């Protein structure tokens, strides 16, 4: 079946958009000091930052899945003003400048924070400057992406599937686990990828809430920033590595996982 042709003007605009994305990436690849690349890749600091970044971003995505899917479910079943309020709350981190998010996290979970002070005084737990803090910062900024994607998926789901399941005698949990969740798989998947990508690239909230310390809180974006002033070449190599990892994962994702059943 042939699709209708895209108007030439739209193709031109699309081309411009594509160029806008490609040029910076091309700059990164073409200006890379390939002779130093090998040394950069095998340097222990690089491995540390990369490991930490992967760990934190995957942990953040896992938390986002566990908390975000139920949140999306509640959102999609609520109506009216309550829903608007809830949705505004869950998408707030998306519009908040990340540094502001970091400050807010400090004010909530820092030693003098709303919850943090209780934890500190009762158990001596200090959250800022820890890897956990980096994970929290990334979860804060990235989870809304997952919630939005899953909520959209839920709203486009034919309600009759759940009705059919209930008519067959399935109770709430069985309907969720055996009908709703499997049918949501594409939305969950694309939401998780967006979430993970956002978490991987997070900088402002991380640096404000978790600080910067190699091996503990120095994720790749932070490492790149630090390296940029003193060793720009290292910064480029590090950026390239992160780019390569991201591309590998995105390309490895099959279309059918993202597409409809």
């Amino acid at each position: 079946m042939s699709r209708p042709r895209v108007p030439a003007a739209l193709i031109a605009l699309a081309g411009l958009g594509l160029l806008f994305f490609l040029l910076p990436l091309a700059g990164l690849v073409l200006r890379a000091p390939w002779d130093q690349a090998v040394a950069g890749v095998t340097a222990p600091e690089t491995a540390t930052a990369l490991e930490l970044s992967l760990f934190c971003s995957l942990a953040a995505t896992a938390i986002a899945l566990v908390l975000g899917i139920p949140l999306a479910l509640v959102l999609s079943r609520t109506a009216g003003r309550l829903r608007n309020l809830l949705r505004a709350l869950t998408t707030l981190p998306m519009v908040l400048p990340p540094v502001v998010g970091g400050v807010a996290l400090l004010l909530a979970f820092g030693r003098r924070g709303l919850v943090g002070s209780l934890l500190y005084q009762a158990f001596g737990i200090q959250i800022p400057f820890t890897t956990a803090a980096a994970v929290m910062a990334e979860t804060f900024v990235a989870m809304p992406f997952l919630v939005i994607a899953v909520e959209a998926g839920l709203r486009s789901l034919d309600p009759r599937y759940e009705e059919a399941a209930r008519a067959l005698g399935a109770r709430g949990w069985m309907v969720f686990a055996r009908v709703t969740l499997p049918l949501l798989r594409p939305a969950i998947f694309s939401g998780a990828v967006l979430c993970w990508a956002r978490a991987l690239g997070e900088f402002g909230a991380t640096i404000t809430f978790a600080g910067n310390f190699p091996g503990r809180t120095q994720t790749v974006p932070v490492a790149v920033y630090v390296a940029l002033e003193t060793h720009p070449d290292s910064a480029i190599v590090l950026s390239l590595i992160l780019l390569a990892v991201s591309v590998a994962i995105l390309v490895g994702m099959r279309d059918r996982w993202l597409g409809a059943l």
Partner: protein
Amino acid sequence: MTKAMLAMLSVILVAGCGGSGWTGYSPLYPPLTIFAASSLQPAFDKIGQKAISQRITTPTFNYAGTQTLTAQLLQGGPGDVFAAADTAHMTTVDSAGLLSGPSRIFAHNKLEIAVGSGNPKGIHTLADLSRSGLVVVLADPSVPAGKYAQQALSQAHVTVHPASLELQVTGVLSKVALGEADAGIVYVSDIVTSGKVDGVTIPDSQNVVADYPIAVLKAASNAAAASAFIDLVISPDGQAILKAAGFQGV
């Protein structure tokens, strides 16, 4: 309707251009862009006001970590004057051929330990910073203040395990002010201008003196105004402002 809007638009554009001298429209006081280390902000803001009142220039300040400013200048950032927090970065800029003449030292700064109001953890010396259970925050070694802090600590043979290596000295200050960190090493000037933290003096024998150089950049649009600004900084008026902000004069 459209004609009026076009007219308005052109007035706005021209007025906006005045600041960067695009159209050759010369305001009364030539504009200058001054790249200055973030620790200089309170002092330089005041010096800037003096520059306006003495009709030397209308300055616009670009405050950031010295290493960030250096990177910007190397990438072709539009600055007229550069005031750095250490000589190493000024040398880098000089080696890139961006200075129009030699730099001059206009101030010194010493390090001081920042602690929470009232010094609740009872910190009195650099050695106290190695106490276990203390949350200490330093500036990253890529920042001049961080580099000097490491110097002071190793000279005093004190090992500190920092919770974070902040990317700007102001980051260290804010963490201590917020109560997230028990102590940090910053400049004397930072503590003077903050008002929210207390300072613990580091004796001169253990301290590091930072030299602050200033220079006119080759790309300066108005070299005369740039030099005049530097003269103001080194003048008694400028030095008084710097000293009030916690710096040592030259």
